[in-house]
Each structure stands twice: as structure tokens, then as C-alpha cells.
């Protein structure tokens, strides 16, 4: 039996989302069409918009649907960053870093993975108005950033704050202080192919893709309604925080003394644990666990499938340990014995690898 512990790469599809996707596929229709079929599609789209807005703290009119989290982040960085300095946290996802470009200034993180607010303030004080990009929670470690504090600094210095909420949405209550925030449908348990950028009331931004003027001119292209409907249904899914946190804690208790948990001192997502086994390459651990039927990952999923040393752990000052971490991220439907089964496979791997190293 395989054990899927890679929710931060993609959550398993929730049954409610599946139902909503199939219903939208079957109903068809282009939400921009004038006729009845189009209007029915429009109604489903706006219901999804209202559900997403209500769930994640925006007005429906301030929800811009996109094809995914990467696009939502890029839309914010390019749209809100126009004419501004861009400051990005050192542990941001490549979706944000690539959009921010090589000209972006990096806001360092502390050893526990949280943004260095003193450094942020110095940077904000030292230049023209900025767009600050800070994720709500990190994809590799689950470390939750001090968004409220960062937002008040941004307000004080006339900066905008964009928050990549792709990993946090649905797992913790989202901070309410950002100017824009991005979510991704498949990280909620919906299908891949939909995401959204949510905006503070009154804030607008230019489109990256103009097209047919959909999404109030902020994102052209026919909305991927089945994926959006799936995202909205997934967003309503029951929270699993307490159940997953208990499993996560059992895993970390089982690894205590044998491994280092990245960001252990910081508030973290309930489902995520970055477990560092000193001296053993992340890659070897991911492969060994895969062969034992346990799916985990190291670092952000890259389309090449290769495993690279984690820049996130590097930014936390973990040095050589940055190449020795794996990310265990419990999905919403993790079986009750997930922690125990993981620990069994992990311990067997650890014993074998320490033998072959000897």
C-alpha cells in the first residue's frame, strides 16, 4: 500500500470537488455568452466567485480567476509591482521569485524561517515605494510568516504587500492584512487548472493577458469553469488542521533526537514537516522512501523531476543540512495510521543508510 504524503505538491481531489467539476463539464457553456446556456455558466462562475471570496476574505468583485497559483502570483507581481521596487522574501516560491525577476531585492529570513522584519523595515526605509512579496506559509517547511506585522510596516512606508497564500489557504485562517493574495485550486483539493488572485477592496491592477476582457479586464481568456467550480467546492471542504497536526506531531516525536526539524521554533502549517537527516542527501531519502511506497518530496516540485539542494533551507542558514531535508506534507485524507507507517519506513531507511555510510 502506498502512502501519499506530498499534499504540498498537490492535494488529492476532494469528492465534492470532483462532483462540481463533472457537473460543470456536463453543463458546458461559456460564461461570456449572451444566451441562456451562457447565463447558466455565468451563474455557476459567480457562485464559485462568491464562495471563494467568502472563504478567503475578499469581496466577490475583487476575485480574479486565473489558471493557477503561479499565474495569480505573476499577475500580482507584474500588476502591482509596476513602477515600484519589488522586495521578495528569501524563501518565496519560484512562482514569485521568477515573476519578481533578477532586479528584486531579497528580504532575508531568520534561522527559524520567518521573515526578518527588522531587515524589511530597513529596506523599506531606504528607498522609493515598494511591492513586498511575502508568502503566508512556506511550501517546504510550513513556516508561517508574520504577515500582520509585515503589513503594518508596509503601510507605514507606503508599500503594497502581496501574499502568496497557495500553501496556507484551506489549512490555516488567512491573515487579512495583505493587499493581494494568491490561491491555487489543486492545493485545496480541487483539480489543477484554476487559481485566483484576491485583492483588497478598491485595489485594481492591469491584466497580464488582456484577451476578451474577462474578469473585469484583469484576466482575458474564457474562464476554466470546471476547474474553478472544483476549486470553489474544495475550498468549502472541512478543515483537517487538528487531526493532521496531531499526526505531524507524532511524526516529529518519532524522529526526535535523530533528525532536525526545519523551522521547529516557528508557527507552522499543521500538515507540513521538513525532516532533515544529517549526512544523507534529500534525493536518496526521497527515492528510498518512494521504493518503500511512501511519497514525499524535497524542495519545490520542478518539472524536470530532479532534486536540488533546497534554497529555502539554505536561506535559513542550515548550510550543508539544506541538502538533507525531506518534506512530509499530510493530505486532507491522510489515513489515521499515516504517522506510524511513515515512521516505520523512515526508520528502516535511516538504519540502512547509516549502515551503508559506516
Amino acid at each position, binding site marked *: 500500500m502506498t502512502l501519499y504524503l506530498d499534499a504540498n505538491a498537490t492535494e488529492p481531489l476532494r469528492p465534492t470537488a470532483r462532483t462540481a467539476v463533472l457537473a460543470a463539464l456536463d453543463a458546458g457553456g461559456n460564461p461570456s455568452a449572451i444566451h441562456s446556456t451562457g447565463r447558466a455558466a455565468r451563474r455557476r462562475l459567480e457562485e464559485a466567485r462568491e464562495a471563494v471570496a467568502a472563504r478567503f476574505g475578499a469581496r466577490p468583485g475583487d476575485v480574479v480567476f486565473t489558471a493557477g497559483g503561479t499565474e495569480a502570483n505573476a499577475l500580482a507581481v507584474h500588476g502591482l509591482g509596476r513602477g515600484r521596487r519589488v522586495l521578495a522574501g528569501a524563501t518565496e516560491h519560484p512562482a514569485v521569485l521568477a515573476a519578481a525577476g533578477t532586479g528584486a531585492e531579497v528580504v532575508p529570513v531568520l534561522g527559524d524561517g520567518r521573515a526578518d522584519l527588522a531587515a524589511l523595515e530597513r529596506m523599506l526605509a531606504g528607498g522609493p515605494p515598494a511591492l513586498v512579496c511575502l508568502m503566508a506559509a512556506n511550501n517546504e517547511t510550513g513556516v508561517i510568516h508574520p504577515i500582520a506585522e509585515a503589513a503594518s510596516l508596509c503601510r507605514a512606508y507606503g508599500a503594497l504587500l502581496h501574499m502568496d497564500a497557495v500553501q496556507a489557504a484551506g489549512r490555516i485562517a488567512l491573515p487579512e492584512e495583505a493587499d493581494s493574495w494568491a490561491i491555487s485550486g489543486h492545493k485545496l483539493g480541487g483539480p489543477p487548472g484554476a487559481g485566483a488572485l484576491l485583492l483588497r477592496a478598491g485595489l485594481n491592477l492591469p491584466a497580464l493577458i488582456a484577451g476578451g476582457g474577462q474578469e473585469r479586464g484583469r484576466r482575458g481568456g474564457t474562464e476554466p469553469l470546471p476547474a474553478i467550480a472544483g476549486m470553489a467546492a474544495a475550498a468549502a471542504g472541512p478543515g483537517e488542521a487538528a487531526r493532521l497536526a496531531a499526526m505531524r506531531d507524532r511524526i516529529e516525536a518519532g524522529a526526535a533526537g535523530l533528525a532536525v526539524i526545519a523551522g521547529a521554533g516557528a508557527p507552522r502549517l499543521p500538515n507540513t514537516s521538513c525532516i532533515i537527516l544529517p549526512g544523507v542527501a534529500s*534525493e536518496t531519502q526521497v527515492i528510498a522512501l518512494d521504493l518503500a511506497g511512501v511519497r514525499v518530496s524535497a524542495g519545490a516540485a520542478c518539472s524536470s523531476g530532479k532534486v536540488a539542494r533546497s534554497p529555502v533551507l539554505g536561506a535559513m542558514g542550515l548550510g550543508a543540512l539544506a541538502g538533507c531535508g525531506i518534506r512530509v506534507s499530510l493530505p486532507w485524507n491522510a489515513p489515521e495510521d499515516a504517522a506510524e507507517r511513515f515512521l516505520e519506513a523512515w526508520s528502516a531507511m535511516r538504519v540502512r543508510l547509516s549502515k551503508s555510510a559506516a
Partner: protein
Amino acid sequence: MRILVAMSGGVDSSVVAGLLKAEGHEVIGATLQLYDHGAATSRKGACCAGQDIHDARRVADTLDIPHYVLDRENRFRDAVVRDFADSYARGETPIPCVRCNQTVKFEDLVGLARDLGAEALATGHYARRIEGAAGAELHRAADPARDQSYFLFATTQAQLDFCRFPLGGMPDKAAVRAEAARLGLAVAEKPDSQDICFVPEGRYSEVVAKFRPDAAEEGEIVHLDGRVLGRHAGIARYTVGQGRGLGQASRDGEQPLYVAAVEPGRRRVVVGPRAALPQAEVAVAEVNWLSAPPEGPIACQVKLRAREVPQPALARWDAAAGVLRVTPDVPAIAAPGQACVLYDGERVLGGGFIRREAA
């Protein structure tokens, strides 16, 4: 048994994976990402896999085996590419495939295979591994045209014991391609790889110059008798025995001239007539033995470059100095940095890297 197969995405290693799977082994595929394919082909910003990695993954899909891409860019740059440039800067002609086999392939993949509980590492090399009384022996491939034993001399005995070369007995490449077609692999007709993998356009001197600008500085071309005949644009462009790229120094009257030596200290390329090039004795260092190190002189056959048949020679091993002294029956041209591999008939006895004798 569980076997790790090093899959390059080419037809050879693909067939290895297919054959072992068909024999009932639990095959795990591993493909090394050795350089940024985007950068190598002058496309910026691609972090991701080139065509070969894509092909390896598709073959693994076809065979239904687990497959992993291993990021070895840093390791490869340090152990192979930098060494390649350093070797040129020392006035040598490096042989990067040996370094790659020595480090990234065998040292690292054998380690990974053991970590993953595999009992062997298989590659698509054309060489035969024969179980001998004192451990595994390395032999030439059945197809002399494809034999790669020369490039495998630096494999340690422990690595050789762990490795498998299932293509060593193949009669020829056509047979391998036929196997690939029989196994339904999309790479059956894929062309053979050429030249040095990390130098896509064949302009290796640019790679060298990036790491070692000193090897690209110009200098004099000097005749063995001391006459300055011309100038060159970097010692990295020259190898002992070479006749091209010498400009006006390529002839001395009617007599064609060839590179006789490369002197890194004075940045000089020394040229002379063909007859002046062969050496009576070749010094070999960094020796790896795949047989009991000989205590006295041994008659054997040697290969001083990849594309030649082994020639009879006498070899004397100075264990204390760590130097092998090889006397070919017929004096031969030996380029420092290339491998000198000793054979007893089909078997590889050992080998090392040709060194320039102190003048």
C-alpha cells in the same frame, strides 16, 4: 535482484534497462543531469531537462520501471569540467569521459545503489565483466569497434565487483538497436552521441577559457630546434601529434610539422617533424590496477589513445613512486593527459594517465 541502471536516454542504456527488466530483475532507472541543458544550448533560464533526460523518462515509462533524475550539475562541474580545463592548462589533453566514469558515474552511483538496497549497478558500456578467481575482471567488448574498456580502466575493483555491463557481449550496435526495437523503445533509431557531451558545439576551447583563461592566452610556436615559427591563440587548442591549427608553423619548407610538446609554463607549443614525436618510454601516473600489480616487468599490450588497437609493450610498475613506465615495442606518440591502458589479450590489467616527463 534490485539493480540500479544508469540511463542516459540513449539506446544502449535503454536496452540495458529493458533486458534486465525482461530477465525479471527489479530495475530502478537513474539519469544524471550533468549540466544545464538550457545554458549548454545557449537558451537562458531553462532549469529543466534536455532531450536525453526526456527520452530516458519515456523509456522508463515504456518499461514501467521507477526512474529518477539526479541533479549532478555541481559535482560534474567540479569533478569533470573543471578538471578538463585544468588539464589543458597543464599542457595536457584530458579525457573527461574517464573522469566522469570515475567520479559521477561509478563512485556516486555505486554509493546510491547501495543506499537504495540495490545489489548491482548496470550501465550501457561496451565492456565485459567476467567473474574471476580474485574478483571481477574487466575485458574488452565482443565488438572491437564498440569496445569502451579503455574508458573504464579507472573503475576500482570494488566498483567493478558491483557493476554489470550487459552489452559487453553484443556482436555489434545493430544488434543493440534490434533489441531496442524488439523491446518497443522509442530510442531504437536515435543517433549515437558524439564528442564531449558538455561541449555541444564542439568549441571546447571556449569551455576551457571560461574556467582557465590562462590556457587561452596566446604564445609562441617554437620548433624543436629553437626557432620561433609563429604564434598560437592558447595552449588549450593543441595536443601532441596534432598537425592542424599551426598556421605558418605547419610546415618547415616541404616538411610538415606536428605538435611535439605543449609547455604550459612558457605558454609554448613545440613542433617538430613526425619522426621526432614517438617516445621510447611513456610515464603513467594515477594508476589503477584491475589485476595483481606486477612485481617485475611484464609484456602486455597497451592503448595510448581511444582509437587504436592495443600495441605490444613492456610495462614496469614502480609501486614506491606510483609510476608505471611503459616501453612500446615500437616507439609511439603519447599525449599527456590521455589514458594508457594495459591489456593481457582481452583483459584490462590496469591503467593510468600519461604524464609529461620532467624535461
